[in-house]
């Protein structure tokens, strides 16, 4: 993964009192956008973004070293020496040790000017040494009130040496403004208010900014403990103090780390670091920076939740302090919460997405099963794997090619020996409804005669080193340079490379995997580019980083180079919840583990877990033993088949969730507390999660267990949970022990929901387009249920011109109705309803009839008494038109 937030010097700061402001901090990738341009005509873009780490060079060095030292090479682990600790970062060390008696910062009241939604004022630092105030530095402060009860704080030098770099592409344009009024100016405090009744209280000296909610409770404080530092073109530090309320509070997110979803106190150890790094054999339970970074942090208690989005692409370190009574996040970037907001639930994430980028509708195949390996060595190998899935009747939608398909790591080329007939190879796949995904890395081999290199050299497209010459680093191809995507011309050039005619062998069924975009530089500091490299625009002396290589809007991410160990399977769950909460729902881990070899039980559990994670891809390292599903014993094969089939049966449900995600931005995979914000026991649960608000997943992540603990939330509201394997209803009552076998993982459907399924699982998802639906209706205690379904062609952008169906299902004892939510949209689907399963029905109807298009058809039903399951047999209703089924008792 690879979000780059590297420039140090912007001070945006978005604070949302009422609801979490999780800006989708992902940045639109230049090359992605270009691909989009090129492919708009036919389909959504799926760019799957990636991370690939093994570098032979380092690996060799490492094992040699071990041999020299111990006489034998033990198990390799992350080489911490390659990566910085706080102590080694001047920036981090300086600020962590900073303990001011009094803030040097003060507001110049005379300069305050409120216009529209913006307060601007001058802030200066004061030297108190000789009773006389000496102004040291002047800063410009901007406080803007934004729609949805969000505030933004920006602070920069009044007259900087040069403009600091500002990340621009994370947001969907400038956020919408709200009104801002100055209410009072007395006792050294300014009080302002937005149109929604939220207040901001600014203490003049020392500067402190408090954000107050409707009830008068302080939600977030900026600089309470006087630790704000904006180093004039050097370093800046923010401190947001806490307020000292109440109960159980949890801080979550700031991906990407291997730690728990909820954040731990860091003062005695390393702070959480945000920086994009390609980490070889990364560690578990670590605050080390890996791959990508999303600087958004939430704080949640049963009364309120708040969030801070650090709109700043600089390398960032975060310190967290958890007190037993109240939680304080004290840090370089430091946030706190408390107060009495009612809920964190569904509505809370709604707001931020109004301003930030929303994801597109991913193509349906991208949510299906992917088979990858570094590497399928040639066309025959790829074909054999493709046929293996058919032979063993396991569905698969895409096969992936890693770097070895290229001609000596020159991207946009094919190995002339091993991949001689790419077009034919692709059509073999598409003949069965499958796709190909090929890797493209953003480093360019420095080889005379390689067209990309020659173009980039001739047109001066490469990132420069501090001397102003083309920067050269070492990556897969050997000596490489890096196109400077800050230059729109370079971006345009790179876009052109993806065109089918410029990359022969590709077509609409070939998709792109972007990797190594931290950027990974094997011989660079911390395996990335030196910070003093120069980019096209921001004329900073310092490197502002390759600000973007991917974004949640267009790409899926995976948790990087994990290993075939139970610990990594366990870590994948909190890592993906964390990413989802920060705006990146399309997340998964390498099924089976990238390094090492998973034995049958681990492999089975990994497939079962992966089937319920958004990005479902098996991948492995080139040196490991092959592990396509059929290389296991027959029993394991059938268990893997079962797991993958479960995913395919739910594909339309997943597709619907991602459609809704594109509309409202809510995470697809959710922590329990998002839906049950008042249940404190859920705050620290990060080995189970919800899909939308409908399914609860508790993957089995432990070796050899025969039972697991599952937390069923919603006792207070009388929530029912239906085991999806038996439709047996369990009333929510917190923790339960559930017996599991190797074929079982606990998955529950929430009472009151309807989930659409397709039970006819075929070789690939595209072949299931016309297949009928089974609707699973799980009744709540009022005997009602509700659900949605999204249908389109699964492939093109036609949905943007209303060629889709977004439908709702409503069950009341008297009827179940299917209606179009957007009446302007339609899609001529050939799907129909083959079965309706109603679980939890106490009083079965005597008769049922379908009403559709003025026609009435009597229907058959079967009651499974004892389980209270009623099955409506073959309603045959078309999904292209609304319908209703009426029950008589």
């Amino acid at each position, binding site marked *: 993964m690879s979000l780059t937030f590297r420039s140090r010097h912007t001070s945006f700061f978005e604070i949302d009192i009422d609801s979490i402001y999780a800006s989708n901090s992902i940045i639109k990738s230049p090359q992605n956008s270009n691909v989009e341009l090129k492919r708009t005509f036919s389909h959504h873009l799926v760019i799957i973004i990636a991370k690939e780490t093994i570098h032979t060079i380092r690996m060799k060095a490492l094992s040699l070293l071990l041999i020299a030292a111990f006489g034998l090479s033990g198990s390799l682990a992350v080489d911490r020496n390659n990566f910085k600790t706080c102590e080694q970062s001047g920036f981090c060390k300086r600020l962590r040790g900073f303990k001011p008696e009094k803030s040097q910062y003060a507001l110049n009241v005379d300069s305050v000017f409120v216009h529209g939604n913006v307060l601007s004022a001058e802030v200066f630092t004061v030297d108190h040494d000789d009773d006389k105030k000496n102004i040291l530095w002047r800063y410009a402060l901007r406080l803007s009130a934004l729609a949805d009860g969000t505030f933004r704080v920006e602070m920069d030098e009044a007259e900087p040496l040069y403009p600091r770099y500002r990340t621009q592409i994370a947001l969907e344009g400038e956020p919408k403004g709200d009104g801002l009024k100055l209410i009072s100016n007395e006792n050294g405090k300014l009080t302002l208010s937005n149109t929604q009744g939220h207040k901001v209280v600014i203490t003049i000296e020392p500067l402190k900014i408090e954000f107050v909610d409707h009830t008068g409770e302080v939600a977030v404080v900026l600089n309470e403990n006087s630790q704000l530092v904006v180093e004039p073109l050097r370093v800046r530090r923010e401190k947001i103090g806490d307020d000292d309320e109440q109960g159980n509070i949890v801080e979550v997110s700031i991906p990407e780390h291997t730690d728990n979803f909820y954040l731990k106190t860091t003062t005695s150890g390393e702070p959480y670091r945000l920086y994009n790094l390609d980490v070889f054999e990364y560690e578990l339970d670590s605050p080390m920076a890996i791959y990508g970074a999303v600087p958004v942090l939430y704080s949640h208690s049963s009364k309120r939740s708040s969030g801070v989005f650090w709109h700043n692409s600089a390398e960032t370190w975060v310190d967290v302090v958890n007190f037993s009574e109240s939680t304080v996040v004290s840090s370089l970037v430091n946030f706190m919460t408390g107060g009495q907001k009612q809920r964190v639930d569904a509505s809370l994430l709604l707001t931020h997405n109004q301003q930030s980028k929303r994801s597109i509708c991913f193509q349906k195949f991208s949510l299906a099963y992917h088979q990858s390996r570094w590497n399928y060595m040639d066309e025959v190998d790829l074909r054999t794997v493709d046929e293996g899935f058919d032979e063993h009747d396991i569905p698969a939608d895409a096969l992936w090619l890693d770097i070895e398909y290229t001609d000596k790591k020159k991207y946009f080329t094919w190995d002339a020996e091993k991949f001689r007939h790419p077009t034919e190879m692709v059509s073999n796949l598409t003949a069965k409804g499958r796709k190909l995904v090929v890797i493209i890395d953003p480093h360019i081999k420095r080889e005379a005669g390689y067209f990309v290199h020659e173009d980039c050299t001739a047109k001066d497209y490469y990132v420069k080193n501090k001397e102003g010459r083309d920067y050269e680093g070492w990556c897969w191809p050997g000596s490489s340079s890096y196109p400077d995507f800050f230059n729109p011309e370079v971006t345009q050039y790179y876009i052109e490379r993806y065109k089918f005619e410029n990359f022969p062998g590709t077509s609409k069924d070939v998709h792109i995997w972007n990797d190594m975009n931290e950027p990974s530089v094997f011989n660079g500091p911390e395996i990335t580019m030196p910070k003093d490299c120069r980019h096209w625009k921001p004329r900073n002396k310092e490197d502002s980083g390759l600000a973007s290589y991917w974004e949640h809007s267009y790409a899926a991410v995976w948790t990087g180079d994990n290993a075939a160990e139970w610990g990594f399977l366990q870590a994948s769950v909190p890592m993906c919840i964390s990413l989802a909460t920060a705006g990146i729902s399309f997340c998964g881990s390498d099924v089976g583990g990238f390094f090492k070899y998973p034995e049958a039980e681990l492999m089975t559990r990994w497939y079962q877990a992966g089937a319920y994670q958004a990005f479902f891809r098996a991948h492995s390292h080139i040196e490991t*033993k092959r592990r396509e599903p059929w290389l296991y014993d027959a029993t394991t094969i059938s268990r893997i088949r079962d797991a993958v*089939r479960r995913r395919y049966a739910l594909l339309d449900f997943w597709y619907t969730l991602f459609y809704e995600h594109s509309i409202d931005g809510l995470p697809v995979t959710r922590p329990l507390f998002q839906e049950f914000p008042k249940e404190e026991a859920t705050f620290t649960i990060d080995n189970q999660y919800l899909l939308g608000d409908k399914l609860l997943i508790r993957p089995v992540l432990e070796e050899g267990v025969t039972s697991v603990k599952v937390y069923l939330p919603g006792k207070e509201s009388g929530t029912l949970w239906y085991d999806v394997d038996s439709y047996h209803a369990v009333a929510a009552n917190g923790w339960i022990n559930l017996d599991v076998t190797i074929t079982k993982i606990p998955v529950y459907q929430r009472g009151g929901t309807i989930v659409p399924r397709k039970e006819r699982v075929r070789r690939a998802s595209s072949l299931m387009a016309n297949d009928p639906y089974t609707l699973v209706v799980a009744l709540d205690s009022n005997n009602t249920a509700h659900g949605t379904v999204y249908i389109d062609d699964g492939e093109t952008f036609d949905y943007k011109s209303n060629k889709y169906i977004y439908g709702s299902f409503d069950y009341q004892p008297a009827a179940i109705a299917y209606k179009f939510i957007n009446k302007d949209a339609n899609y001529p689907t050939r799907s129909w309803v083959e079965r309706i399963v109603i679980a939890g029905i106490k009083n079965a109807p005597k008769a049922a009839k379908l009403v559709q298009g003025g026609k009435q058809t009597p229907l058959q039903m079967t*009651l499974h008494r004892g389980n209270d399951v009623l099955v409506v047999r073959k309603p045959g209703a078309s999904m292209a038109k609304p319908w209703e089924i009426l029950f008589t008792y």
Partner: protein
Amino acid sequence: MIYSAWIRQLQSLTIVIFTFIISAQTDVPRPRGVSLSKASLYSPTKDFTCFDGTSTIPFSYVNDDYCDCFDGSDEPGTAACLNGVFYCTNAGHRPQNIPSSRVNDGICDCCDGTDEYATPGRCSNICEELGKEARAKAQQLADLHKSGNHIRLELIEKGNKKRSEMALQLLQLEKDKAEAEIIKNEKEVLKSELEAKENEALQVYRDAEEKDRQRKAELERQQQETEASEQFARFDSNSDGVLTTDEIKVVNVFDKNKDGEVDQEEILHFFGDKDSVNMEDFMSTTWPMVKPLLMLDQGMFRPAVKEEDDEPEVDEEEETQRVEDTEDVGGDDENIEEIPHDDADEQDIEPEQSRAYDDETQKLIDEATEARRQLTDAERTVREIESNIRTFQQNLEKDYGLQQEYATLDGQCLEYEDKEYIYKLCLFQRVTQKSKNGGMEVGLGEWGEWAGREGNKYSVMKYTNGMACWNGPSRMSIVNINCGLESKLTSVTEPFRCEYKIELTTPAACDDSNLTQEATHDEL
């Protein structure tokens, strides 16, 4: 699976509440997707019972595009059941069973196109064409096997001949071994006799030597004792025959660290944990420690410079080490001629030989030496024969196929070149790979076993335990064998990391009788 999974778990009573039957079945001899052999199980005049017996449904439910049976047997012609099977007749070619999920999915799976009946015209019937091709191929293969079979028969003959020759040779070797053992025994007896005589003659010399040594030792001991008791008397100031700590405290020589005082540590050093020592203890423990100090005191010698002191010692140890190492290596390797262990005392004799013996003794020594040499030779002969026997036995035990058709291929090496490497397969021996750019030969496996599937064991060879891969398993090779008119390698690939796949053709695999069997099997 999916839907059926939960329904299967239901033990509860299932009641059909309302039944509305649509009868839309056309009159067909058997439902779509049913093979002839199963046709009788689907009778339109009766209710249909699922094959697993779990439920009975109206016949109109068969192939009505809704899955009623857990085992999928009610939907042989639709995609409704996930675990169903669709049968295509494929007239003109081979019939086929495909999973129900491939029915009406837009992809032509059956050559007669019957699996895509929902979209008529999508799939044309190409069975005739394919059948023709398949039959031509089968004919070609049959011809190949037929001509190859002649060569195979020759191979079998040669193989059997080779084996019986080997058996004969083995018999001969057993005989040779018996003879060689007799000779060895004779030589052993002779050697013992001559060595006895030799020992007797040498005993005289040894006795004289021993006496001389004892005399010298006794002399030295006496000298020591005298000296010790003299010193004891000197230290024992009250002459009570016991040396106490007080008595030695005043003697400089006990001040080991020369700090001008005999402290507790030094007393402990010389007396052990006793307060005093008598003459006897003094002699055995204290004196040996005191003497060098005394000599030092008297200037009789100076302590040696440390390096000089240590170095020879180390050298000596290393020397010993080196000798031992060499012996160990020799001992491990049977093929290296080694000196038998009972000759060890010969080394003792060695230095004595520099001494002059009388003629008679010298003659006895020479005779014994000769006898020892002859025994060594005789033993070596026996070992060589035994090793040959083992090789023959191993070869005879090797499985060269049902009729020894692979026997003559043992040891035959075949090569295959691709862009980067030259691969070499030496049958029943090993597989190697060598880069064309030079470098070491890499072992891809040693002969392991026949590994074909049941009933076709001799179609696959497995060579295992090759060179270990970095971070991975040992390399291994799988050799797939097919009929061909000459023995050669047609491809070498590495489909799995460190697992090589080699395609070998050889007439030994041509068998026309086998082929007809397989062909008939296919028709079923």
